[in-house]
């Protein structure tokens, strides 16, 4: 965990750890894991709100809890940039982490795989592997997506690749 900023570290320590090693094909054990996922997400969202650092919305997109969708946003130069967020729980979960997708940014940055999957290889995957099965969706957002947004959004905005939606509506119609 060297090299991580203190606020991320302190947030991380307050997200409840998970314990059930179960994936979507594991029946009742998956339901148990899903409960732990919810508990961690509730704790993390509550904490973000209380620290005035609310930055995402996420909920299960199907009853099995294998597909999730929502939004996330990042504030740069006092303007809010919001993106749709989605991912599937892989069959080999939790051995492999969810591949978080921001479809609107597909093709706009090389820190991304095809289909809008953000690149997590270096900063996040080793952490996930070391902490399996204790890390869940909340940890993936905190340690995977949040640092990615913090690194990429300012570059995309400053280089003109990403436009704020207020500016875009005027230029797109011209």
């Amino acid at each position: 965990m060297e090299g991580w900023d203190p606020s991320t570290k302190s947030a991380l320590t307050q997200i409840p750890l998970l314990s059930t090693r179960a994936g979507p094909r594991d029946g009742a054990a998956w339901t148990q894991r899903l409960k732990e996922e919810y508990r961690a997400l509730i704790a993390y969202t509550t904490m973000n709100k209380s620290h005035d650092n609310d930055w995402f919305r996420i909920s299960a997109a199907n009853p099995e809890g294998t597909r999730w969708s929502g939004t996330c946003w990042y504030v740069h130069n006092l303007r809010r940039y919001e993106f749709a967020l989605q991912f599937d729980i892989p069959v080999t979960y939790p051995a492999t982490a969810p591949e978080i997708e921001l479809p609107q940014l597909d093709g706009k940055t090389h820190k991304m795989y095809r289909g809008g999957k953000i690149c997590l290889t270096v900063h996040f995957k080793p952490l996930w592997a070391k902490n399996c099965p204790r890390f869940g969706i909340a940890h993936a957002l905190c340690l995977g997506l949040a640092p990615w947004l913090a690194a990429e959004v300012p570059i995309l905005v400053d280089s003109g690749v990403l436009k704020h939606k207020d500016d875009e509506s005027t230029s797109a119609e011209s």
Partner: protein
Amino acid sequence: MDNHLFSVGMTKTDAAVQTLSDINPDVVLESYSLNITTVKGFEVFMESLKRRFSQKSGQKSGVDLVLSCVDNYEARMVVNQACNELGQTWMESGVSEDAVSGHIQLLVPGETACFACAPPLVVASGVDERTLKREGVCAASLPTTMGVVAGLLVQNALKYLLKFGYVSPYLGYNSLKDFFPTMEMRPNPQCSNNACIERQKEYLQTKPARDAAAKAKLEAESSKTEGPLHMDNEWNISVVDDSEMDTLNSCGVSGALPEGLIHELPTAEKYHESLVTEEAKTVEDDLEELQRQLDALNAS
């Protein structure tokens, strides 16, 4: 599969089928274009492996060999999962993120290490990644490295299917130094993949039969040259079977340690996750209640 040779405007699987049928129209080809890491995609993938083309009786899988040519860790783990569950022999191939080295690996569930037995390490190359990255993808790409690795994979597959030469259990390719390391990897008795552990147990159970077959073969060969090799054995030298060596060694290791020393790692073959008991067992809440709580937070 990643290929830039095929035409634009169609899936690369369909393009591959088209190209391959032009080369050999007698081969029956099926193409699937799907994400095998999702629950639904995995089911389709498993069904495609189980369909019995060659009518191999008594086996869960209907194919002779699976070649994995995917470009990410998640998909490899899924191929590994499917092949472990089906007891399907497969070959894994890959090129490193810096595009200058690669490997091929033979995986026989239960007999050799599975892909989850030895997790890959992130190795720093000391080269700035940005100098290697290609536009649009989160990794470097060098077609020559891919070509070499693909050639090695197909050669190994031919040797395996047509039963000639030596089928490499692992062959690495370091293009910067033209170094080709080989090695064999035994399965990890603490592997986190349950299907791998089951295949390992089955493999151990069939060991006596395999040993007997090997012994019979050896005897049949040595019966031509009957009689002791040396008339006297002054130093009591004897040939010991590998498995006997293992039991001899473990006897020596498991003995009491000198005073003041303790084993740092658990000695049990199976690692028990002690964390389970501590906190999360208290999660007795109803799933719907938890969903409501998160929805309420999302709405506010």
